[in-house]
């Protein structure tokens, strides 16, 4: 009886957005009198930080710092339609809608600034700090604060824009299955290293090295929190979780966190995250949706590592000590 070590690899891809498309999202953007910008949506922030990312996307597009942007969302009286936050679609779909709305608002902003500066709007640029400058003559400038005041109280303009993003729905061909499920795919490769106690069947995940290709890390810190969390969830799926431990038998289902097993802080593997960025053709600044994908590759990587360690295949999830011990027993009887 011994502790045996093994490692396994898995490589995957994952589609962004609702399968087969047809899942629209809209956005509205307008300025306040003092040159802050409101993004109005009905998308839901699940805790992953959607509001923050929409603020950064709007800020980049208009050319102001992120803290000048407020996101008002998840209210059906004020926000235009969004299909919902699921299918790794939030950033991709709503982000595109926000870019379109922000571009329209930016154009009005530049037109008002052009009137104030007596130049052509096409000769203006933003400095990203809250000012509009004449290209090549940056000493000639106006603050966005003053542009907004002018638009509201002098020029009678609404600095606002409308955005909409929709990938037309694809219908699978009945006999061949020809279809367009998605417009872009994220990628991952995970290597997991485990120790398996062949006396107890217990698996310890020592470390996971995850490489994720996600199009564009719009906010690297938020990308990291999602990818690390996803990686832990993947390990938890592989080794711990089920509401029906003896599926298809309905008995013994957990009803609280004492019975429904998940890893505790001490069970978490050393987690390494490496991110590659191959921008998608139709994502906001090239972003894809990594939200779901990041919890997938750890499951087969751990399963393959368990085989590498003790030479038994557990093809039924979760890979519990009971299943490992039964397989080892069958192998020994062999």
């Amino acid at each position, binding site marked *: 009886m011994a502790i045996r070590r093994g490692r396994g690899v898995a490589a995957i891809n994952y589609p962004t957005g609702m399968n087969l498309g047809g899942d629209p999202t809209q956005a509205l953007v307008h300025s306040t009198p003092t040159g802050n910008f409101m993004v109005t949506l009905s998308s*839901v922030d699940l805790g992953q930080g959607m509001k923050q990312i929409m603020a950064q996307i709007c800020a980049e597009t208009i050319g102001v710092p992120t803290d000048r942007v407020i996101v008002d969302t998840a209210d059906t009286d004020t926000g235009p339609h969004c299909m919902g936050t699921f299918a790794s679609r939030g950033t991709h779909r709503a982000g595109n809608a926000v870019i379109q709305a922000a571009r329209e608002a930016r154009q009005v902003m530049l037109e008002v600034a052009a009137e104030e500066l007596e130049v052509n709007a096409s000769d203006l640029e933003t400095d990203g700090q809250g000012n509009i400058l004449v290209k090549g003559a940056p000493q000639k400038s106006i603050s966005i604060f003053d542009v907004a005041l002018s638009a509201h109280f002098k020029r009678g303009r609404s600095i606002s824009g409308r955005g909409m993003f929709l990938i037309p729905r694809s219908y699978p061909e009945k006999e061949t299955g020809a279809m367009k499920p998605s417009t872009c795919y994220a990628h991952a490769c995970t290597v997991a290293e485990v120790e398996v106690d062949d006396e107890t069947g217990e698996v310890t995940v020592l470390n996971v090295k995850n490489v994720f290709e996600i199009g564009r890390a719009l906010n690297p810190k938020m990308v990291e929190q999602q990818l690390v969390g996803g990686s832990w969830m993947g390990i938890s799926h592989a080794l711990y*979780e089920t509401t029906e431990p003896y599926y298809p038998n309905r008995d013994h289902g957990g009803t609280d966190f004492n019975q429904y097993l998940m890893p505790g802080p001490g069970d978490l593997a050393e987690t390494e995250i490496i991110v590659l960025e191959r921008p998608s053709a139709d994502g906001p600044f090239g972003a894809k949706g990594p939200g779901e994908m990041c919890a997938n590759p750890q499951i087969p990587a751990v399963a393959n590592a368990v085989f590498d360690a003790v030479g038994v295949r557990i093809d039924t999830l979760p890979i519990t000590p009971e299943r490992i011990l039964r397989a080892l027993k069958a192998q020994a009887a062999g």
Partner: protein
Amino acid sequence: MELRKSYFADQRKDGLNEIGQPRPRLDSPGHVTGKTAYFADRNFPGMLHLKMVRSPHHHARIRAIDTSEAEKHPGVVKVLTAKDVPHNVYTILILIQIGPEDETVLADGKVRWKGEAVVAVLAETERAAQEAAAKVKVDYEVLPAVFDMEEALKPGAPLVNEYHGQNHYLYDSGECRKVRFGDVEAGFAEADHILEQTYQSSPIEHAPTETTGCVVAPEGNDRFTCYTNTQAMFFTLDNASIILQMPGSKLHFVGGTVGGGFGGKVDVIVEPIAILGAKLTGRPVCFIYSREEEMQISSPRAAEKVVIKDGVMNDGRIVARKVTGYTDAGAYSRHSPYGAQKGAAHYPGPYTIPNVWIDTYCVYTNRTPSSAMRGFGVTIGDFALEVQMDKLARLIGMDPLEFRFINAYRDGDMKAHRQPTEGAALIECMQEASRAANWPVAEKFMAMSSYRKGG
């Protein structure tokens, strides 16, 4: 976390002001200091609490329901049964024309899974609602139940859901969603080895910190505001509008920050019945799942069975792959027909295989309806595919990582569902994993590229 900027640098514009910057989240201070408001922080004077009477049987006919004792219980304001729900039989994906309507808001004549909602009790306190729910008498005639997908698909199996007429979803393509590419039998005939394996998963709970729920307040003008943690505001509003036969203009949905979704909050379960309760009593209503309800009543990730048959050559090329996927929907569709279809689009994985045959089935059994969960349609498929890849590599005596390089898809490769590959990056992920994990592969694989001309 490390960003490896050397890859794909020619396709990317770096150096932007706000994008790519690790700005601190503006909502984080509120979350970590307990200041962020969630739906359950709404509290209205006179708010009622809703509790469900649930089926103790997996499959049963309802002979009679007696709510008289419950109605007399102190604190009880209203007891609702199927006849109170204007459009009681519904299905959520009807909004995107995926029918038929196959589920009841409150059971009508029959229950099809243990835990199914039968009677809703509205009372002044949670305790009174719970106690009154225990006094509802339901006379059941227990029916044979089926839990195993294979059993469910056999002729003569108990019929789970009459609205479907058979124990699987009927696609326009027939009993399963199909993908046909090349000639899979010819591929098997030329293969050096054939490997057929079966993979199985069990249902999984989303385990959000915040359980599913909503608070509904009448606005006093025949309009109702529903504070909810749904993941999809209009999707829920539009479904509630159908179920309640109320114009959407009478409904106002307010969300906010949600304490974790993972797909567990895209079913439309708590909102319609709570709005109905508020409408019929004229009082605010809250309906929040207990942790037990979250774990055993709300939809889990579907259990799946995946059978993969591969033909592989000694040089590492996979020449044929046949996948049969089964998704255990439980008693009702919810999002499972969509999930099974997503699986058909995902197989055979990120590999270029000339001959592919895919069938995916959505199967009904007498268990808690499954539905959306992070990656559903793909997650379990990836488990099966990637364990299979490991087995194939070992079968032909090849390094598992090198074996994947040989088969990895690259730009321009035709996928089984007949879309050319664009924006591939699997090879680069594997190259970086090889370095990070100190898992060396032959130089020719490290020189490959997802760009076609690159390698």
